[in-house]
């Protein structure tokens, strides 16, 4: 059983209508300065208000002509982070739509960019989670985008294309209802680990894939390696989340 369906991708509105974007013309030299400021703000952000400020700067920079790809990508990263930190479900549902729209505008402005495809795939994934009526179409869209990412930029985000596609294939409803396919998911998880074995999330997805396909001992080893790698990367802002996820999964395997 799945919920009723709507399309995951609708035509995006003009940039000025997304979130807090100003939409006013920005000189390219000013855009570069805005981008630098936004990156600094996002890197240092410790609370949602700071992330929102960074997002505003990225969206403002996206008003330059030609719009720099980094402005869309930064706005997408900031939006994704806001979604994860937002406690209000209604606001999360607004944010995920904005995230998808930013990804679409990124791809419209930079059709050849694998980064835009990757960010759009992630945003569609968040949207599928928060707006379940988009999930069926969204999962198919994600698979298509991620396959394109893998073909064009397999190393992007430490083999993020392989890693995220593995997650989709592991967690989506199976054939013929959805694209779920644990065996193919395991292949992509192995590809992510082969390319970037020291990236903790790659070991976590490998652990999940091995568990899903019946190799409990292999899953335990991958997750233990994920825990060790996450501990060794304690300075990374995402290390705590990786560690918590790995330890939870490890507890279930033991």
């Amino acid at each position: 059983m799945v919920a009723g369906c709507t399309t995951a991708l609708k035509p995006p509105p003009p940039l000025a209508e997304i979130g807090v974007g100003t939409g006013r013309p920005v000189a390219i030299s000013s855009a570069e300065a805005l981008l630098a400021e936004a990156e600094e703000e996002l890197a240092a952000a410790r609370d949602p208000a700071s992330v929102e400020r960074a997002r505003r700067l990225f969206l403002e920079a996206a008003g330059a002509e030609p719009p720099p790809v980094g402005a869309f990508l930064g706005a997408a990263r900031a939006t994704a982070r806001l979604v994860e930190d937002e406690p209000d479900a209604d606001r999360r549902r607004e944010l995920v739509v904005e995230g998808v729209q930013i990804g679409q505008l990124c791809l419209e402005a930079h059709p050849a960019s694998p980064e835009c495809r990757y960010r759009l795939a992630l945003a569609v994934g968040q949207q599928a989670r928060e707006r379940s009526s988009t999930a069926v179409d969204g999962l198919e869209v994600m698979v298509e985008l991620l396959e394109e990412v893998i073909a064009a930029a397999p190393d992007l985000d430490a083999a993020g294309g392989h890693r995220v596609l593995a997650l989709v294939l592991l967690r989506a409803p199976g054939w013929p209802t959805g694209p779920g396919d644990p065996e193919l998911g395991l292949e992509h998880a192995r590809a992510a680990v082969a390319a970037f074995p020291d990236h903790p999330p790659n070991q976590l997805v490998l652990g999940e894939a091995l568990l899903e396909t019946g190799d409990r001992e292999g899953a335990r080893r991958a997750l233990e390696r994920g825990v060790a790698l996450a501990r060794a990367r304690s300075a990374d802002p995402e290390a705590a989340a990786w560690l918590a996820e790995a330890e939870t999964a490890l507890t279930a395997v033991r």
Partner: protein
Amino acid sequence: MSLLTLAARSSSGCRGLLGPACLVACLALAGLAGADPLTLVVCAPGYPGSTGEAQPAMDGLASAAAVAAGWGRDDFRAVYFETEEGGVARLGEADAGLALVTLPFFLEHREQLGLEPELLAVPVGREPLEPWVLVAAAGKVSRPADLAGWSLVSLAGHSEPFVRGPALAGWGALPDGVAITFSGAVLSSLRRAARGEPVAVLLDGEQAAALPELPFASDLAVVHRSAPLPVSVLCSVDGRGDPTRRTAAVAALAALGGRPDAAGALAGVRIDRFEPVDRAALAAAEAAFAGAAD
């Protein structure tokens, strides 16, 4: 990785237990306790989704049926189970007056649970009756005896009499040496079959329709196609509840397909409409099941 946690987040629910919204809900529940609540239990073992994931769609279906019956939106409830055990347990509860179940589940549990057919559900884009289809590696299987020592994997594997009876009795008697296994994830088994391993897969109508699109479909062959069988059956449960209300609920569900205001609710559970029971087809399935169960 946390960005792609596809499992739905639970909403905050009633945080303030005495807030106005919760008070209204509590009063409504108290009122229902005296009004003979009726619950539709939907069970499709091995099919996608969980009870929690499906609940919004179940709520939509129940609400649409309640409106069609002229009841309050909360006077009829629906809940989904993707496991046989979960469905059987829930159908044992006093308010479970209706069940919507797959044919293998119906045949397996009709006596134990007192299931009485009322309507057939027609899935979106499909027929009320569809054949089950046995698939194996191309050129490896031509008669039932060829399956000796093989695995036979299916969504219907939880009911061996269904597999041996309604699904495959028309082909012949399966040998004792075939291991019948239940699995909702048949893609892996289809790959193994395509590689020439001793695995046969019994597909439902939706799976059979999607088979030609698989990249390795040319390595597989359809070995047998059953007679068309009901896909899913709406039943009353053990004569439970007020018969007038139950009859009204069945009539409301039967009417949903013609109500534009119910289109979204039906689409949410991937049902096009409910139809009268095909008694001849169901009787044939029951006879084949009984023959295999003996």
